[in-house]
């Protein structure tokens, strides 16, 4: 069981040497969990030479500006490496936060 206040991150596709990696965020991306999230996400990016990263948001129940900053950093690093970052299946409440700060336009949101 996942506590809604914590964050669990699972990565799919990296081991098989795929060029399409899916990162699933489960829980809550807030002040207390961003540090760990940032570390994990940048690690994934580092291991990837070419291709796409899709972040599956379907089980992310909460995001604050701290979480947005991590996504912004990930987006910048990915662009620098010519890797495409996609954000998928955001819940309404999380989507609203992205919309509020105008981030929906900065990212590829599916």
């Amino acid at each position, binding site marked *: 069981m996942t506590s809604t*206040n914590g964050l669990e991150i699972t990565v799919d596709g990296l081991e098989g040497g795929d060029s399409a990696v899916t990162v699933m965020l489960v829980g809550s991306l807030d*002040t207390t969990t961003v540090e760990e999230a940032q570390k994990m996400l940048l690690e994934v990016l580092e291991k990837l030479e070419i291709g796409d990263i899709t972040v599956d948001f379907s089980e992310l129940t*909460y995001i604050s*500006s701290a979480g947005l*900053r991590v996504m912004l950093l990930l987006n910048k690093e990915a662009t620098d490496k010519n890797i495409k970052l996609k954000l998928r299946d955001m819940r309404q409440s999380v989507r609203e*936060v992205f919309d*509020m*700060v105008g981030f929906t336009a900065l990212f590829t949101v599916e």
Partner: protein
Amino acid sequence: MNTQELIRIEHLNKTYENGFTVLEDVTVNINRGDVISVIGASGTGKTTFIRLINRLDEPSRGSVILDGVDLSDPNVNIDTMRMRIGMVFQSINLFEQMSVTDNITIGQTELLKRSKEEAVNKAKELLKTVGLVNEADSFPEELSDGQRQRIAIARALAMDPEIMLLDEPTSALDPMTAGEVVAVLRNLANLGTTMVVVTHNMSLAKSISNRIFYMDEKGIYEDDTPKVIFENPQKPRTKEFIFRVTSFNFALDNEHYDYIDLRNKYLNFASSHGIDEKNTDFCRLLIEELATILPKKSGTEITFSLAQKTGEFELIAVYSGVDYDILSEDNLSVTIIRNSVEGYAHKYVDGANRLALKWGRR
């Protein structure tokens, strides 16, 4: 509604042996079908009050009259009278060496002289009421605290009491299991059970009761409907208490303040005030963003409150220093706050900045 009087309490006084007077001249009546929540700060005599009703404690003066019978009359068989009153405590006491069913049947067979079969049937019916049919053969130690408290409620109900007295039945439980017990209490209230519940859970008090007793100044300081007590309390101390329990305060007075502590305390507050998930998360976002940008130093604090009448939320931040509105900055937190609230005001008074944010329920 049936307003037939069940209990009449007259000029009740309680002074403990050490000379401390807890209750002074309390006169009140309880009608059949009443669901009364007893609220108030700790130490105001709530427990004493309900222990006096079923005479677990002797009053120093005054009387409790149950259905016309004065419980202090020496000719009255107090044990027989007590069977008519069901009692549930914060500390859950079950017979650990007996199955759940035996816990619920023993009083019926021993005290009410019901047949085993009749008692077991009653137990089955009550297990349904408290949602624990599948635990009939379990032993108490196999159950969670919330389940144990529901069994304690079923056991009290098995005696067909005319009134149930519950002293903080959910206080020892975590928010999740407390919710199960709250659901049972709601169910009982709907079934017309006469109840007196001492509770700190204001959303429970507000939603199940037809009367609230606010305890203060050695007695029932204000006795009125939940609407009046929560939305428009008439007396000053009630007003103060209601504001205090419907608001949440946290100091951000140094750089190493504990955000997890802030978040958890806020989440507890939100759940005990019945704020739904969507609003809980939305308010949490505003609290987190405000905490992010506030200067963390001596004097900084936030107060989050619920206007009971309008259902609006308010978040107030106070911080010292020069006259400076932190929402004039340009960053993600400010953008989120400005786009979320419906009203905002900054004031500088006596060397302190006061920022007030308001928004409605979503």
